C-alpha cells in the first residue's frame, strides 16, 4: 500500500508471495522499480480493494491513510507499518524488518549488510561544498532528513538546513538565490503543466543553475530507503568529485 514498502517487498519476497503493489509503484517519476511492478496486480490503497485480495499481510507506511489501515486491522488482517526513512541507518533496519515480516529474515539481513558495506565505502574528506534540494512550490529538505544526510555524507553543506529548516519546508526562491549553492538538485517535471512546478523554470533559478553544477539524479532513487538509494548517493558523490575537478 506504500511506494517504499512495495519496492522493498518486491526485492525481498519469494515469487508468488507478493500479490499486489500500489499504483504509485508504476509511476516512473517516483518509483525506481516500474518494470518489476508491472508483474503485479495494482491496488489504489483502498481498504475494500485490498481486503478482497485476501492478503495474509499488508505492508503500509505510517502515513498511509489511517482509516484504511484501521479498517483492515479490524477485519483481522495483519498490517505492518513502516515510518518513512529519515536517516540512512533506518534504511537497513527497514530492510531487516520487511525481510522478517515476509518470513525471509536472512534475505533482509543480506540486503542490509550489503547496503551498509556500500555506504561505508562512500565518504568525502575535505571542505564541504554547498548544495540545495529544490522541488515544486519551493519545497526543500532541511536538517533531519534523509536528503540532508546524503548531502553531508557526500561532502555537501545543505543550504536548506543552513537556512534553519528542520524536516521538509519551503525555502523562498530569494533565499535560495542569495545562498548561491554550488549544486542544485531538482526534480523532473510531471506531464501536464502545474504552477507549483513553474518555480523550477523561474529565470532566477535558471541563472543560478547556469552558474552552478547540476546533479542529474532520478527522483525515484531518492524517495525511498531501498538499495536504489545508493544510486542517488553515488550520483551526489560524483557531483562532488566533479566540483573538485573544476576547482
Amino acid at each position, binding site marked *: 500500500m506504500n511506494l517504499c514498502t512495495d519496492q522493498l517487498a518486491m526485492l525481498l519476497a519469494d515469487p508468488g508471495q507478493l500479490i499486489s503493489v500500489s499504483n504509485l509503484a508504476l509511476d516512473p517519476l517516483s518509483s525506481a522499480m516500474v518494470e518489476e511492478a508491472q508483474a503485479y496486480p495494482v491496488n489504489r490503497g483502498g481498504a475494500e480493494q485490498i481486503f478482497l485480495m485476501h492478503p495474509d499481510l499488508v505492508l503500509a507506511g505510517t502515513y498511509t491513510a489511517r482509516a484504511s489501515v484501521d479498517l483492515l486491522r479490524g477485519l483481522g488482517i495483519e498490517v505492518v507499518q513502516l515510518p518513512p526513512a529519515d536517516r540512512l541507518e533506518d534504511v537497513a533496519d527497514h530492510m531487516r524488518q520487511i525481510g522478517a515480516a515476509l518470513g525471509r529474515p536472512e534475505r533482509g539481513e543480506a540486503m542490509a549488510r550489503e547496503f551498509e558495506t556500500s555506504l561505508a565505502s562512500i565518504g568525502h574528506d575535505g571542505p564541504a561544498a554547498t548544495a540545495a534540494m529544490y522541488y*515544486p*512550490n*519551493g519545497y526543500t529538505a532541511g536538517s533531519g532528513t534523509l536528503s540532508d544526510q546524503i548531502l553531508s555524507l557526500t561532502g555537501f553543506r545543505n543550504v536548506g538546513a543552513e537556512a534553519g529548516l528542520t524536516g521538509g*519546508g*519551503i*525555502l*523562498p*526562491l*530569494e*533565499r535560495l*538565490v*542569495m*545562498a*548561491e549553492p554550488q549544486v542544485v538538485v531538482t526534480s523532473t*517535471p*510531471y*506531464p*501536464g*503543466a*502545474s*504552477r*507549483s*512546478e*513553474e*518555480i523550477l523554470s*523561474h*529565470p*532566477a533559478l535558471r*541563472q*543560478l543553475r547556469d552558474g552552478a553544477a547540476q546533479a542529474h539524479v532520478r527522483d525515484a532513487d531518492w524517495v525511498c530507503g531501498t538499495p536504489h538509494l545508493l544510486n542517488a548517493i553515488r550520483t551526489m558523490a560524483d557531483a562532488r568529485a566533479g566540483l573538485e575537478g573544476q576547482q
Partner: protein
Amino acid sequence: MTLRHIALLLLSLLVMALFLASLLIGPAALGLKQSVMALLAGEGGPVALVMQEIRLPRALLGLLVGAVLGLSGAAMQGFLRNPLAEPGLVGVSSSAALGAVLSLQTGLAASFALALPLSALAGAALAVLLVLVMAGPRGGALSLILAGIAISALAGALTSLVLNLSPNPFAVMEIVYWMMGSLADRSMTHVWLALPFMAIGCGLLLATGRGLDALTLGEDAARSMGVDLARLRLLIVLGTASAVGASVAVAGAVGFVGLVMPHLLRPLVGGRPSHLLPAAALGGAAMVLTADIAVRLIAPDQDLKLGVLTALVGAPFFLHLLWRMRGLEA
C-alpha cells in the same frame, strides 16, 4: 486644487511608496543601499538576481494587478450602476482562472506564448457577457449577485475538475492558488506576458469615462445625450476581459479589490465615474501592494495567498454594503 486632485496626488505618492516597500521587503534580508544599487546597476551576483528577477516582477505585478482590478471594478459598477459589481464577486475572475487552467492543462499554453492570457481573457469575456445578460442595468443588485454566485460556482467547480483530472500530482494543490491568487515567485516573463493585455484593457476602460458619467442618469438619458451604449458595452466587455484575464493568468483570482476601492474613494473624488476610474486604479494598486507586503511580513516562509488578505478586508466590507443597501431597498 480640489479635494479630488489632492486625493489623486496622495494616492500616487502612496502607490510609489508601497512599490518601493515591496521591492525592499522579502525573505532575504538585503540592505537598502545594496538593494537599490543592485536593482539599478547590478550585473550578475545574487543580490542583483534577487532584485531584478524576483522582487521587481513581484512589485510590478502587484501594481498592475491591483490597478486593473480597481479600474475594472469601478468601470463595472459604473456600467451596471450597481455598487456591488466587481470582477471577483460576479465570477469574471474565476472564469478567467478556468480559461487559464484549461489552456495550461490542455497544453495550449505551451504551444504559443500568448495562449495563456488569451484563454484567460476568453474565460473572462464569457463571464462578463453572461453577467451583463443576466443582470443588465435593470436587473438590480440581487440578480447581479445571484448571477455572480452561479458563475463563480460553475467556474470554480470546473477549475477543480480540470485540476483533479490532471496527470500532474501538484495540480490539485493549485486549486487554492487559482481561487485566492498569489504573486510569489513570478518572473519578468509573466510581466511581459500580462502587460500588453493589461495596458489595452486599461486603455479601453479609461475610454468609458464620459459614457459612464452620462449613464449616471440612466440609459435613455445617456443615449439621448449621444452615448452609444452598444459601443460602451463592447468597451466594458473587452476592457474588463483583457485586463482581468491577463491579471488572473499571472496572479490567480484576487477578490474584493474592485469592490472596496471604488467605495472608499467615492467620497474623496466624487461619484462621477470618469473621476473615479483613475482613482480606483491607483487605490487598487495600493491595496494589492499592501496585501502582498503583508503576506510576506505575516508568513515569510509560507506561501500565504493574496486573496486571503483582500477577502479578510473585503468580505466584511461587502456585508456592510449589503446591510446599507438593505436599508435603502426596504
